[in-house]
Every structure is written in structure tokens, then in C-alpha cells.
């Protein structure tokens, strides 16, 4: 089924590479998507303040996708988790659904729950398939040690978001390993990046991010990868601030998964939105795959 790409508000704050890289990777893999200009914020920032306003925001998006006969494909964990949560509430509670639908009616919309919500990683892992990705690769990140950061709203609450029921979850690790990298085990892998408190309690937010970075480093990672704009921002912009103001002296690059995948699909660095050079760790591990040659090697051995 065709999907409507659900873009996140945060990418406008200096993460245009997320938009460009996910666009180009989806196109390269032949995963069809359209844009619905009418989409609004998923409602996540409103959850602290007013549950109904949050629910209404999410429900309007779901109703819009439904009206267009499309599924929603998110490129942000928070959008994913919060749309999923809204869907859960709307499906569980008929009285809430009626209330929300009464409001949506004034916009000419109705929620009935036919559009499903997917995350980029889910589409890649479950719909497209790890093996299919492997076959399409032109390059590999041979042995690059990556700290895979899932991000909270992709995983929890487990029954609500339903991305990966496994314990521990493996889907993102599978995708990281599919492109030739090693997904290293690390302490606090499934913990929060610290972003939700940025702007509210910056010190605490940086404490948590600092701890994540130190743990990833201790796990032997050369690089982090994420699929959430909030996490990416935390591990790039805020990491820079932590290095400037605190006792963290090793910078750990964080690269968006679609950018890594794009490189391995043979897409140009500029097209994927890498501003400058590739991070050194990525550059040194990126190798061409020569199917014939590698096959011949095996025979020779």
C-alpha cells in the first residue's frame, strides 16, 4: 500500500539531511510515498499539557491519511510512538473516539482506524526485508562498530507501539548488520537520549546524553546511529555543547540510519545531505562490494 510520509517538525531545525536522505533512499528502494501537506504536528509536545489537544492533533493526521486511503510512514520515533499511542486510545475507548470525532467533524474529517502507522525501520525490516536490502547493496560498512540507538518511542510502551516485541529488540540491529557494520552491545542501549528535557532542564538533559555517549564509547563504538530527529539532534548539536562545556573529550559521530544505508546503496554523499566530509569512521570502513571477485575468492580458498 502506498504511504504518506509523515515529516517531523524538528527536521526544520537544521536536520534537512534527514528529509533528503529518507526521500532518496525510499525512492532508490522503490518504496512509494506521497506528501500530505495538510498534516499537522503529531501532538507529542502537547502531552505534558493537555491530553485532549494531543489526541486531537494525532487523530486529525490519522483521519487525513484515512481520507487519502494511505498508511502513515513516519521518520521520527516520537511521531511514531505518539501516533501509535493515540491510535491505541482511540481504538480502546469508544467514548473518547466519539468525542474526538465530534471535533474532527467540524473539519470535515472522521477517524475510523483504517490507516496503519509505520516507522521507517519497520518498513525496511518487515515490508522490504533485510535480505532484499542486502541484495541491493553496492557498498558495505565493513566491520564499522556502531552503537545502535533505538530511541524510546520505537520500543515503549511495547504493546502500544508494537515495533519489536522481542527481548531484547533486534530489528534495528539486523538492519545495521545488513549493511556490513557490527552492532556493538552497550550499557543503557535502550535508554532515553535525554532530548525530552532539552529546553526545560538542559543540565539534566545533558547529564543523560553524556552518559549515553560515554556508554557507547565504552562499548567500543566508533559511531552512533539513530532514526529519530530528537535523538540525532541530541547526539550532534547537544553533544557539541557537552564537549564545549563539560568533561567529555571524545566526540562520537552520530549518523542517521538512512544516510548510512544510502551510502551502501551507492548514493552520492551530497545527495544524502552530508554537509562536509563523511565522518572518519564511516569513510574508513566504506568499501565497494564486488560480487564476482568475492565469489572467486571463496572458491580459491
Amino acid at each position, binding site marked *: 500500500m502506498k504511504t504518506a510520509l509523515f515529516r517531523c517538525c524538528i527536521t526544520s531545525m537544521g536536520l534537512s539531511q534527514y528529509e533528503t536522505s529518507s526521500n532518496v533512499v525510499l525512492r532508490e528502494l522503490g518504496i512509494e510515498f506521497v506528501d500530505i501537506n495538510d498534516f499537522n504536528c503529531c501532538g507529542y509536545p502537547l502531552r505534558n499539557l493537555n491530553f485532549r489537544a494531543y489526541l486531537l492533533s494525532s487523530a486529525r493526521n490519522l483521519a487525513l491519511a484515512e481520507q487519502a486511503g494511505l498508511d502513515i510512514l513516519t521518520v521520527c520515533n516520537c511521531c511514531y510512538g505518539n501516533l501509535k499511542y493515540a491510535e491505541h486510545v482511540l481504538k480502546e475507548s469508544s467514548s473518547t473516539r466519539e468525542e474526538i470525532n465530534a471535533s474532527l467533524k467540524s473539519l*470535515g474529517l472522521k477517524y475510523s482506524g483504517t490507516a496503519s502507522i509505520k516507522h521507517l525501520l519497520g518498513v525496511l525490516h518487515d515490508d522490504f526485508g533485510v535480505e532484499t536490502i542486502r541484495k541491493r547493496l553496492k557498498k558495505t560498512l565493513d566491520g564499522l562498530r556502531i552503537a545502535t540507538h533505538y530511541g524510546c518511542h520505537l*520500543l515503549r510502551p511495547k504493546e502500544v507501539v508494537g515495533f519489536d516485541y522481542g527481548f531484547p529488540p533486534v530489528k534495528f540491529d539486523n538492519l545495521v548488520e545488513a549493511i556490513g557494520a557490527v552492532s556493538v552491545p552497550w550499557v543503557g542501549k535502550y*535508554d532515553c537520549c535525554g532530548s525530552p528535557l532539552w529546553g526545560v532542564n538542559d543540565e539534566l538533559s545533558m547529564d543523560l546524553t553524556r552518559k549515553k555517549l560515554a556508554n557507547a564509547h565504552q562499548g567500543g563504538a566508533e559511531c552512533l546511529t539513530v532514526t529519530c530527529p530528537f535523538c540525532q539532534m541530541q547526539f550532534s548539536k547537544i553533544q557539541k555543547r557537552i564537549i564545549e562545556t563539560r568533561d567529555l573529550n571524545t566526540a562520537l559521530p552520530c549518523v542517521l540510519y538512512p544516510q548510512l544505508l544510502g551510502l551502501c546503496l551507492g548514493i552520492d554523499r551530497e545527495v544524502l545531505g552530508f554537509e562536509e566530509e563523511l565522518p572518519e569512521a564511516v569513510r574508513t570502513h566504506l568499501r565497494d562490494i564486488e560480487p564476482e571477485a568475492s565469489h572467486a575468492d571463496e572458491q580459491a580458498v
Partner: protein
Amino acid sequence: MFHKAALLLALAVFGAGIIIKVSAWFRYSVGPEKADLRVSRRIAAALKGIGGTFFSRKVLTLIRTFFLEVIFQSHVLKEDLLRWFAHMCIYGGFAMLFFLHVLDNEVVVHFYPEYASTLNPFLFLRDAGGALIVIGIALAIYRRFIKQTHRPMTSRMDIAAMVMVGAIVLSGFLLEATKITSESTFQRMAEEYAGQTDAPELQALESYWVENFGVVSSSLRGPFDKATLAEGKTSHQINCAQCHSSAQWGFVGYAVSIPMRPVASALDGAGITFFLMWAHYLSSLFLLAYLPFSKMFHIFTTPLSLMVNSVMDGQGAPANVATRQMLELDACMHCGACTLRCSVAVTFLEFPNANILPSEKIASLKKLAAGKVLDPKELRAIQQGIVLCTNCNRCGVACPAGIKLRDLWFSARERLLQHSIEEYQLLSPLAYYRGLQRDNIQENDYQKPLDLALKKVAGDTSGKGPLRAGEKTMLGKLNTSIQANSLSECYRCVTCTNSCPVVHNFKHPGEVLGLLPHQIMYAISLRYWEQVFSSKMLWDCLGCYQCQDNCPQRVSVTDILYELKNRAISRRYDELT
């Protein structure tokens, strides 16, 4: 004489209006008032900026913006074809009429010495210009009132603009129509241009005009015999044709004149053309005088904003940013494109505060920038509207005037937050962008509103004073809500607290956070509301769902914390009302 005086008066008001408006760009600012932004300094910075631009490669960008965006409006076309077409009609028609009709004696005669307003192509083009405006306005009305379901609001300014332009065009067409039918106008012109002609020939000429050009004569009625018409035609060609094309070329006026024919003589006798001429003239002068104060001012300010923003990359000198933002307030023509794209506009259904909608914020910002004294209630409403924003910048991308709206909101937000009206919405990811921009905010100014919100939301914790009746019912609902009814399953195992990354961050978490998650769960069952709501833990909760997913009893710990945050804030709002 009188008409010249009226013109001069209108021009004077127009000029004064421009001076008032433009000087305001340098006198006021949207952001927090800063001491170093004196008027003289701002004018100097602006001149320096303009000078620097004209003597650099940026001038090419300016030229490109002028043709592509100001003249052709490519950015509007990209956003919405119908809207672009409607606007091109109004603005094309307006430009045609301004140069060919308003300034005929000032401009056209220099290029075309034989110019006469009754001669083609001018006769035709004048009607074409008016017709374009009518089409454009009709489309604008259709788009605004009929087509859209989720429309931004229509303000008095919008109505005033439509009425003014409508009045000018309508009086123009009516004037033309009555002049076409008017016998007295015919006689006046015949006397002026065919004065030497004898009475029978004049009658033949009038017959010819009645027959062919729609003049309604009180004495002459068709059908006329061929000889008279032939004589009239000859006379017409000698006396009239050089300066007067067929009246049908004024196609709208002519069409309007047809149904007027039965009453034309009576209207002519009552001096209708005189009345309509003044109506047309004065309504035009009124528009001229009122223009700097109306939304039509955008015909100057919007191109200016587009061009300034095309060359002012990045932040720019603070003095110039302040000036630019004032100009931007005037460049907004309240088209509503921003609100249609707004990420949080839907919350207007939940919070009926127009300041949430970007297109409506501008009016409040104008008041704020001009230093108007606003009552706390209004300030609160503006602040709520401007903080309730994800800063996704879709408004700024959609803005046909090229206004850097996100920057505008940022400036206004910081100014408002310094008014020390507590803003609870900052205790949410809505504060995220502000955090990213903290280097552009003074250190003290950054932290102050956060501390204030935390302090006020926690309330007075010293005395546990009895709950008021309203508060009791509100809190009573907590145990029956979907999330919180799982609380009864809690068997006090402390797994929630042990799995909380925030708790783990501190050596003595209780000292920093107040009640820890499991203690909050306890306190709810004991109804220790004051302690629950004053607990810092609520606002340091990440919403990461570790506690909830780890709970062996499937208590919705995170959801309950979310619900408590909602209640903590809503009880403070309730106090206000």
C-alpha cells in the same frame, strides 16, 4: 478646484501615513527592547546594509527576486494555482488601471501624444483592467468564504480592502455605463468636438450614436432611415472617430449600460454621471489616503520584505533584524497561508485563542511592538498562542511575503516571557526550539521563565491547606481515568523508580526530584495531592516509558505521570478563571 484640493489632501494624508509607518519600523521592535537599538543607530545600520547590498553581487539576487517573486510571484504559484491566478488578476488589473488610467495625463501622453481616454487600446484596456480585478475579487471571495473548510479568520481589514477596491471598480463601471447612455454627455461632447455642425447634421450624428453606440436619446428613437444614418456616419468619421472608438470596446461598461437603457433618460436628467464621477474620484482618493493604514499597504511592503529577506541571510545585524521584523509586520496581508500550513492550528479547536493561529498572531504582535499597554489577560492569551508552537517553520516557508515567521515568533516570545507572566507550556517539548536557541538569549533571561513556571506550578508546599471544592472533583476523577485505574494493582515493589534513568542520574534523587515515581504512586492512593503536584519529578520525567514497561503489575506509571502533569497545569489555569 475642489477636486484638486481633494487630491492634495489625499496625497498629504498618504505621505504622512507613509512617514508614520516607515518611521515605526525604526522606532519599535518585536523582540525584547534593548538599549543599544537607538533609532539613529538603526537607521545607520539599515543604510549601511542597503549600501553594502547594492555594491555587491547580492544585487543580482535582488533583481532575480524582483522579477521572479515580486512581479511573477512564482512562490505563490508553487503553493496554490488558483490563489496565484486570483492575485495576478487583481494585481495585474490594478497595475494596468494605475498606469493607463490614473496616470494617463502624467505618463501615457508622453508615449502617445494623441492619447484620449475614449480611444483604443486605452478604452478596451481600462475595461479589461477593471474586469480582471472583478474576476480576482470574485475568486478571492470564493476561496475565502465558499471553498475552504478550515479557514483563517476574516478581519475588518480584509473586508475594508475588498469594499474599497470594489467601490472604485463598481463606480467606475457604472460611470462608464451611464456615460455611454447619457444624452447630455453626448451633447456636451458634440458641442466640443463637432461645434461647427448644423442642427440637421447633429441630429443625424446623434441618430447614428443611438443606433450604434447605445446613447439613449430623449427625442430620437429608431429605426432610423438609411440616409440619416449614412449622414451621421460621415459626420462621426469627421468629428468623433479620431478620438473615440466604438463604445462597445468598453465592454463591461457597455454590457452594464444595456439593462440601464429604460431608465437612462431619467438618470441622465438627475445628473447621475456627475454623481458617479465624484463617487469614483473620491473613493479612489480615499483609497490613496487610507492606503498606508490599510492592508493594501502590502503593495509596497510585501515586495520590500521579499527583497530584503532574499539578501539578508542568517541572522544579520541585530539592529537590522529589529527593523526588518517591523517591516515584516506591515508586509503581512493576512492571507492565511501560514495558518493553513500551521502544525498546531488544529489545537484551536481545544483552546479557542486566535493567537494560536499564525495569521492572527500578527495583529497582536503589532500591538505589542507599538508598546500598547495590554491587560494581563490579553498578554496571557498572546503568550499562550506564541508559545504553543512547534517552530516547524512551515508558516515561514508558506508565507508569500517571505516573512521569516519563526524568527518573528522567537523575538516576540522572548519579549513576552520577560513580562514575568508564568508560562506553564514551557514545561514541555514546546520549549525545545527555545533551548536550541539559548545562545541567542541572555543567560538570565533564558532560565527565568522556566524557574517561574516550575515554582508556580508546584504551588505553595508549606501548608497543605484544604482543597477547594472544584479541585476535589477534578482530582477525584483521577482514579477513574483509563490510565490511573491501573494504580490499584501496584504492590509497592519500587521497580518503576529503579528503572528510571532520571532517578539514576542522582546520588540522592529524593533531594532533587522530590517524590520518586513509586512514591508518587503511593501518594496518589493516599491523596497527598500537594506533595504530588509539588514534586519536581513530574517535570523531570522524560516520558520514556521505562517505568511502565518494567512494571510487573502493568501499572501505567508513565501515563499516570503524564496525567498528573496535565492536572497540575490545568488546576493552575482554573485558578485564573
